[in-house]
């Protein structure tokens, strides 16, 4: 049975496609966007996230850690030395207070689909279904494909939330089992894209064009990151590109949110966007207006 690394299954997901959905978050992403609000999704292997506020200073993790990476501070609370921590997650098993939580677990396709199927009644009442997200769900190609195929088999509608940075063959493989793609456009300039996400945009845009040409249902998603992709030129290029796609697709404008910052800390990673706040409402409205000028159906928010 195919297995994959899943870091969350979120039920009553109501911002990731039509109706009431269950979103399955797969771990691992080819891009490394500093604004990512799910930084725990980026690395393909399990991580440990820390919630120090919940620590009850019982010391169990200190004894449990095979790497001796955990010590206690003046209040008796656990502190991890990131240099020694190998993210094995042993400490999370001993932390009943959930101050240490493992992120990412190996699951079989049927385990995931059985969880997904639990909300079938809600999907059927709402036109919802399952959404694969991440990370980049298609980076776990075989697992994602099986999940989609098995969901479809059980009459559950499917969506894939993708950054597009995978081989076209992956799209070809999953396309027959995917009702809707939620497709991110991060930056129209290849160099800027590479600088910010670690990869260029050519393959991403090419895949999008091909997918559109095949008449597939796609919702475009444009996350507005102040100072990175919200300049007028980029927005115009985004609009022009979307308008020139073989088919018309609605565009969601998503305001950047600093929500992820906290999670970087919990993963022991540094957050490079620092104090960057969310764009102001009028800026978002401005972005939407610019895009609408290209005769696109634009909506703000997920």
């Amino acid at each position, binding site marked *: 049975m195919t297995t994959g690394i899943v870091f969350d299954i979120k039920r009553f997901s109501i911002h990731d496609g039509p109706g009431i959905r269950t979103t399955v978050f797969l771990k691992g992403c080819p891009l490394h966007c500093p604004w990512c*609000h799910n930084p725990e999704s980026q690395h393909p292997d399990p991580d440990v996230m820390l919630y120090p506020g919940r620590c009850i200073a019982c010391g169990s993790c200190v004894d449990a850690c095979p790497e001796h990476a955990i010590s206690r501070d003046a209040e008796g609370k656990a502190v991890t030395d990131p240099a020694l921590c190998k993210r094995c997650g042993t400490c999370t098993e001993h932390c009943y207070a959930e101050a240490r939580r493992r992120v990412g677990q190996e699951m079989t396709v049927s385990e995931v689909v059985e969880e997904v199927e639990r909300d079938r009644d809600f999907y059927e*009442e709402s036109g919802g279904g399952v959404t694969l997200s991440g990370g980049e769900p298609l980076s776990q190609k075989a697992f994602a494909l099986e999940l989609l195929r098995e969901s479809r088999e059980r009459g559950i509608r499917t969506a894939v939330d993708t950054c597009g940075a995978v081989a076209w063959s992956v799209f070809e493989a999953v396309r027959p089992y995917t009702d809707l793609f939620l497709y991110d456009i991060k930056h129209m300039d290849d160099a800027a894209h590479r600088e910010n996400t670690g990869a260029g945009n050519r393959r991403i845009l090419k895949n999008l064009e091909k997918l559109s040409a095949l008449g597939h249902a796609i919702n475009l998603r444009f996350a507005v990151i102040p100072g990175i992709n919200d300049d007028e030129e980029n927005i115009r290029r985004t609009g022009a590109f979307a308008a020139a796609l073989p088919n018309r697709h609605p565009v969601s404008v998503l305001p950047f949110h600093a929500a992820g910052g906290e999670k970087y800390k919990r993963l022991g990673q540094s957050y490079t966007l620092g104090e960057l706040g969310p764009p102001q409402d009028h800026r978002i409205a401005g972005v939407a207006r610019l895009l609408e000028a290209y005769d696109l159906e634009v909506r703000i928010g997920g």
Partner: protein
Amino acid sequence: MDKEFDSGPVDDSGRYGSGKAQGPTARVRRLRQQSLDAEPSISTERAVLMTAFYRQPRTLVSEPVWRARAFRHLMEHRTVCILDGELIVGEKGPEPKATPTYPELCCHSLEDFEILDGREKTPFRVSEQARREQAGTVIPFWQGRSMRDRILEAMAPEWHEAYQAGIFTEFMEQRSPGHTVLDDKIYRKGMLDFIADIEAAMDGLDDSADPLAWERREQLKAMKITAGAIITLGRRHAEEARRQAGLEKNAQRRAELEEIARICDKVPANRPDTFHEALQYYWFVHLGVTSELNPWDAFNPGKLDQHLYPFYRRETAAGTLTRRAAEELLHCFWIKFNNQPAPPKVGVTAAESSTYTDFAQINTGGVKADGSDAVNEVTYLLLDVIEEMRLLQPSSSVQLSRKNPDRFMKRAARIIRTGFGQPSVFNTDVVIQEMLRTGKTLEDARNGGTSGCVETGAFGKENYCLTGYFNLPKILEITLHDGVDPQSGKRLGPRTGQAAEFKDYDELFAAFARQVRHFVDIKIRGNQVIEQLYAHHLPVPFLSLLIDDCIATGRDYHAGGARYNTSYIQGVGLGSITDSLSAIRHHVFNEKSVSMTELLDALGSDFDGQERLRQLLVNRTPRYGNDDDRADDIMREVFEVYFGAIDGRPNSKGGSYRINLLPTTVHVYFGSVIGAMPDGRRAGKPLSEGISPVQGADRKGPTAVLRSAAKMDHARTGGTLLNQKFTPQVLKDEEGLDKLVQLVRGYFRLDGHHIQFNVVDAETLRKAQASPEEYRDLIVRVAGYSDYFCDLGEALQEEIITRTEHEAF
């Protein structure tokens, strides 16, 4: 209902949310404000009148006739109040929120009055005069001879011990068995028609063929007297209206008063012919029922949209009524309910936080007698009124059948979003199943609905009496101590084995089941006696004439006169008991990570020095509300034990006992009498409420909660109560409202009985910040996604709090 109702009027900001262009008229705004501003007070008028009546030499009359004459005395002598600008007239007391007492049922001591006057929440002002009358007239007569005295005297020692330990409560010790709702009969018949029916029934009595004919005749005589008495109350209001009209300078108001006088002369004596007459008629009936005694829960008109629709359609078609005028009348009608706080309690319960709401729940939607969609224009009109009035009372509900349009539910969702806890939402299709299972005809089932909190009943035809709450987690505490209550050290239940000696979970559960049956038996034995005490000493002839088939059978409502007679015992703490049993099964018997002795020691010390163990119990136990069958199967087993102990057992009225799962606010009291529990709950803390999971136990979002809750067989209950919390952002846009509708439809497809939504405010988020463990289930919309509030960093929490403050509706 729910705790947010404890703090009195929901909104006094004068904010009206409907978006209707006009909003309430100036008259309505003034009356509404007057209602909000009125200070609840104790009125001794009723008590003094009843005392004077009872002091008369008791002539050779039967008990029902005596009660009927007492009622007539009250209707003839009580103050008649018509306020300036009112269109619907009549108050239960001499003025708005002047709340009568019922000394023949329970007599307030002066100490009770002090508590009511001084308590911080939901106080009742007690004037010097009221104190004097209570001390000089009421107490000397009633002390030691009220129904409450009789009840407490009649109960067995085992009942008293269990009652004092907080194993169950008793509804009827302070309020009369009520809990019934009116159907459409008053819109077809005036009181004179009822009198004709009563006389026909009396004519049909034959003592030679029917050995109980004398008793029936006395009951019917009594009903006839009360029908006449309520006509008198109407005429007295007509006289007052005419008196005021004579003094009135303003021509428009004079005309209104003359119209009121005409209407009050006509109804309740005669069948109503107009929308206005129909409302005024109902209101006199309401005053009659709630003055005769103080029945749980407040009487209400039931399916008001269906009752009013024929009047509305006829008059709007004829051009004699506009939507605007109908709306104004409904506004006035709503304000009338808000002017009547629930009767205040006596004894220890007076000291507890109480509520002003009397649980009159007006139903909208549902199906007609022929099973078709009942939503009509008046349904939407009522929903507008609910939103515009934003009053604590009356409460309101949406009866949602799969046949009703989404537009109806979405209209209700817009009101829910405004965050005052109304309307609650019920599954008509399951409510009908519940009634069919308990023997109602299909037509009676379709004409029924829900009332009080969530209770199912056949409107106009059923006495469905709530008899008391049952503390399921307390039974586990007693089971774990071999029948002894560890809080008092007293033996209350049978010896069912030392906990440490149970070989497996099944042995423990069997012991728990035995204890449940033991205490249910004590409760039911008490109930049977109490029901008969009411039937003998406090018959209710006025209520009886309104409920089928009391006239036809010549029997009182309290004595089995209703077509259907149900006694409910309401189970409380389902989430807490499930999680506690699950914790024992999982950790003690399956994983063997804790021994029973260690667990009991930790519970005994309230987890002192055992925080890690407590965290294990809280976080590593399969818990109810997560769609986890390991926990939900336990919930179902508990349900079966409780159901099996109660359902179908005969009551004194020829009907049966049934179960309900709802707490009102008793989960707080019930928690206060229990020590620490195996689910990690600390001693004295509140239990879970309704069929909701333990506060913070559900971590998988609302659909998982609904799936867990739907695993019990709601159709075998007479009502379950499920609360869900949302922040305003989730419901902000059209899409959010659609998803709320879909969520409800999904739950109802799974045969859930009821759901209500609390839209979370900034204050709640602050509380969640302070005590995250109790709010682990709170989901907020962060940006393009939602997350658990307690998992967010502090800065983000602050931002969401600020946003919630700004985006409140």
